[in-house]
């Protein structure tokens, strides 16, 4: 035997194909809405039509008479505690006497056909006493505004940051007010799943989610069952983007399944999906920057208000991010920030990609442009001048202890090739209005805009943020095979590919099986905060190292040799001599389970906001080029180019895919994506009226990836998924301002904001 020098494909740094790719292109991949079971019944949800009302009575008589109906449940049928929630248990699984937003679940119906269930739900008579609704978050904290929750005022979280001189002055002062509309995650796979009763009082739930274990805890509380009796398995997930952090149909399907004794399938239609998950917080932001005449920031003040809607969801953490990160990736010695989240009777808001940083970035980047213009400085160079570098302090006093290449990122996007200047006859598909044939180039002006951001990676402010990995190495059919088992949700981002790559790299085996994601292994933490490659990646790496150590220990004992190592699928001695094959040593499987944590974070001081709140920062910059039909207010984004530091690209193709997809969502918020809410009522719950970018809307995107390894992170990785969603939108807004000369202090930018 000789040592093999052949390097197998599919290790870290390669871009192997997704293990689920073939199933997804053949239609065989089982998404949560594809599940099916013999004898299953369908569950539907009756929701409140009112944003605020008391429920005086619910009459099920007519509904129960509908043939085919097997159960109708209301709050009084909840066996456990009727309370769920990510940070506060303030959300009833089913409304109990009061509804606090339009769309709040009131009753559940199970029937043999979804249409039967819908018709029966329509016959449930709910006697509502409509109450005044709190719909303006700007007056939610006024003393005469009613409380949305009888036992709590309307303040969800109030965060303040005070740093440096409390009364700073500067020769140049700029300020603005900004408003950001309510964005939807608009994942394509609807909320759905299948709950199967086990006949012994327990239930198995197959569901699309971002965090199986936090779901399990909430479902157990409502069902009044221990975790052993509520087992969750991840069904195929059709995108998430934060919208699957809170529960949707999880508890409801389990309640119906346990009540009927039958498997229950639930699958929301698109209109229901708009009511079935939380949204990105709309925000009102007031900012002031003071600077020297040479451009250096002297101070920054910000007042940020997030509309949390009816229930807390993750509003406290969104306020945390908006406050601690809300001034952007700049060096600012004197800081005064107030960030608040409030209850209203509007739709509940919570997690969405970019999490509190997206709203703030529109304000601080618009103001940075304003500052540059005021002092006659280049908009790129003022960002490079003020941009953080490694070793700087954040506004919470935390040392940025790995790369912070703000200047390099913004100059890199500036130096990328620009699209050609328009000349001659143009393809109307490339003009504002496109195939609607609204212009052939007349009235069209071009603008260029820039933005930078930074985002925390992983959970912050002292959260015990860990992941668990179980790795097993065994011989199957004469070949060594690794099996990696985590509960970390694959939602499309490619975590399962990364898990395979880590196992191949650490164990040298070619075949890596990804075990289905379920609650029979410890928590993987949330698939959010750009954290899974870092945290679950760290756990898989650690589990592989433990497996490798066990294998080599076993080999040493069996062969009587020391200082062995794994090389490919061979056991090699110190001198390079192959002493055994891995398969020969693996007479029995080796399995190790490891719980892995990143460096701890800490709560911030409640008075000053100072503290080491975050574990890692990720930086990106965008340059947008737009053509605007200034007569009709129509915008065509011509180019949306970006540079981002990813620490180390473990799967370069997947990194680029994350960056391009994230950029599209940020562009969507700048241009078109808004849930329109009037008096607590959602006006556009459909893909007809809530628009997301199509392939015609998206421009070509150049992506420049920087790799400054973070010495504190596994393999040097830095979270990737969120920064592009933060810096892309502000760059687009800036480009429209440049093209039109309009201030544009609200997004999404609507045609009337441009033309009037």
């Amino acid at each position: 035997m000789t040592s093999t020098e052949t390097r197998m494909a599919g290790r870290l740094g390669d871009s192997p194909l997704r293990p689920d790719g073939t199933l997804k292109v053949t239609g065989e991949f089982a998404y949560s809405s594809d599940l099916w079971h013999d004898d299953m019944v369908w569950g539907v949800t009756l929701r409140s039509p009112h944003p605020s009302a008391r429920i005086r009575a619910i009459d099920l008589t007519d509904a129960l008479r509908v043939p085919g109906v097997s159960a109708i449940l209301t709050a009084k049928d909840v066996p456990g505690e009727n309370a769920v929630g990510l940070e506060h248990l303030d959300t009833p699984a089913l409304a109990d006497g009061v509804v606090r937003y339009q769309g709040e679940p009131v009753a559940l119906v199970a029937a043999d056909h979804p249409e039967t269930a819908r018709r029966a739900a329509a016959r449930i008579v709910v006697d509502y006493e409509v109450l005044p609704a709190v719909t303006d978050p700007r007056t939610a904290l006024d003393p005469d505004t009613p409380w949305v929750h009888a036992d709590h005022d309307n303040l969800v979280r109030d965060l303040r940051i005070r740093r440096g001189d409390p009364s700073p002055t500067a020769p140049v002062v700029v300020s603005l007010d900004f408003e950001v509309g309510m964005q939807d995650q608009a994942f394509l796979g609807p909320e759905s799943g299948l709950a199967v009763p086990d006949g012994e009082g327990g239930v198995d739930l197959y569901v699309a989610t971002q965090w199986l274990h936090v779901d399990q805890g909430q479902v157990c509380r409502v069902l009044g069952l221990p975790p052993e009796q509520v087992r969750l398995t991840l069904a195929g997930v059709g995108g998430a983007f934060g919208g699957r952090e809170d529960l949707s149909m999880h508890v409801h399907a389990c309640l119906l399944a346990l009540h009927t004794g039958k498997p229950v399938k639930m699958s929301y239609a698109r209109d229901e999906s708009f009511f079935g998950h939380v949204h990105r917080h709309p925000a009102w932001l007031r900012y002031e920057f003071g600077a020297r005449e040479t451009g250096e920031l002297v101070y920054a003040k910000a007042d940020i208000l997030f509309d949390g809607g009816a229930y807390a969801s993750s509003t406290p953490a969104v306020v945390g991010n908006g406050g601690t990160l809300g001034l952007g990736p700049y060096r600012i010695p004197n800081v005064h920030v107030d960030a608040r989240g409030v209850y209203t009777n509007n739709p509940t808001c919570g997690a969405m990609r970019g999490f509190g940083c997206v709203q703030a970035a529109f304000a601080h980047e618009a103001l940075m442009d304003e500052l540059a213009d005021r002092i006659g400085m280049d908009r790129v160079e003022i960002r490079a001048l003020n941009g953080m570098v490694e070793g700087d302090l954040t506004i919470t006093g935390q040392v940025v202890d790995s790369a912070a290449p703000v200047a390099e990122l913004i100059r890199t996007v500036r130096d990328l090739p620009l699209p050609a200047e328009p000349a001659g006859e143009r393809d109307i598909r490339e003009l504002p209005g496109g195939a609607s044939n609204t212009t052939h180039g007349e009235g069209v002006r071009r603008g260029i805009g820039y933005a930078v951001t930074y985002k925390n990676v992983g959970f912050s402010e002292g959260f015990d943020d860990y992941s668990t990995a179980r790795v097993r190495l065994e011989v199957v059919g004469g070949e060594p095979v690794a099996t990696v088992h985590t509960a970390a949700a694959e939602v499309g981002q490619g975590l399962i590919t990364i898990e395979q790559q880590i196992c191949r790299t650490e164990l040298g085996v070619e075949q890596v099986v990804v075990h289905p994601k379920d609650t029979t292994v410890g928590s993987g933490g949330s698939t959010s905060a750009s954290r899974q490659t870092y945290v679950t990646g760290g756990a898989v790496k650690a589990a592989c190292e433990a497996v490798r150590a066990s294998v080599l220990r076993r080999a040493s004992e069996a062969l009587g040799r020391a200082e062995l190592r794994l090389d490919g699928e061979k056991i090699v001695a110190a001198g390079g001599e192959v002493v055994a094959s891995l398969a020969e040593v693996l007479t029995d499987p080796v399995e190790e389970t490891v719980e892995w944590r990143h460096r701890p974070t800490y709560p911030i001081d409640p008075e000053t906001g100072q503290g080491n709140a975050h574990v890692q920062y990720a930086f990106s910059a965008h340059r947008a080029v737009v053509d605007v039909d200034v007569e009709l207010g129509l915008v065509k984004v011509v180019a949306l180019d970006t540079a981002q530091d990813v620490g180390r690209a473990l799967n370069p193709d997947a990194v680029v895919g994350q960056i391009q997809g994230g950029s599209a969502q940020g562009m969507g918020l700048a241009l078109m994506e808004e849930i329109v809410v009037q008096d607590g009522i959602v006006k556009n719950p459909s893909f007809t009226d809530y628009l997301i970018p199509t392939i015609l809307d998206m421009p070509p995107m150049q992506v420049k990836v920087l790799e400054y390894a973070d010495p504190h992170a596994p393999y040097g990785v830095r979270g990737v998924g969120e920064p592009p969603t933060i810096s892309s939108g502000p760059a687009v807004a800036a480009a429209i301002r440049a093209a039109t000369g309009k201030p544009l202090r609200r997004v999404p930018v609507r045609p009337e904001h441009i033309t009037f």
Partner: protein
Amino acid sequence: MRIELTVNGVAREADDVWEGESLLYALRERLGLPGSKNACEQGECGSCTVYLDGAPVCACLVAAGQAQGREVTTVEGLAGDGLDPVQQAFVEKGAVQCGFCTPGFLMSTKDLLDRDPAPSDPEIREALAGNLCRCTGYEKILDAVRTAAANR
């Protein structure tokens, strides 16, 4: 009611179909073919695109009864002995993330390339504008379509 139709070349039938059911529901829930997707069920996202007598349609907007006696091709019918070049290109070019839009994109892309074997980028964008993707930003989908066109 009973419907009889040909799906992916095979004669199929379903009983007790409610008149209000869409072709999409019949395919997914009655015929065991959930590959066509249910992202919006209102004709906006293209995830349910199938061929009805060879023409691409949103299966969510076709009543199941309208498919009586007709030929339907779904994403499950695209592959032969191996993957169709369009499927292969989507896998290889990273055009698949969550994959929920993928069946619809595959059907629309194959239809485009059957009509126009070498489309320009604006032609690709126009042909696929009825298919929504939330994950990719469409760049890698464009790569995949260009690759599929080259490899067919």
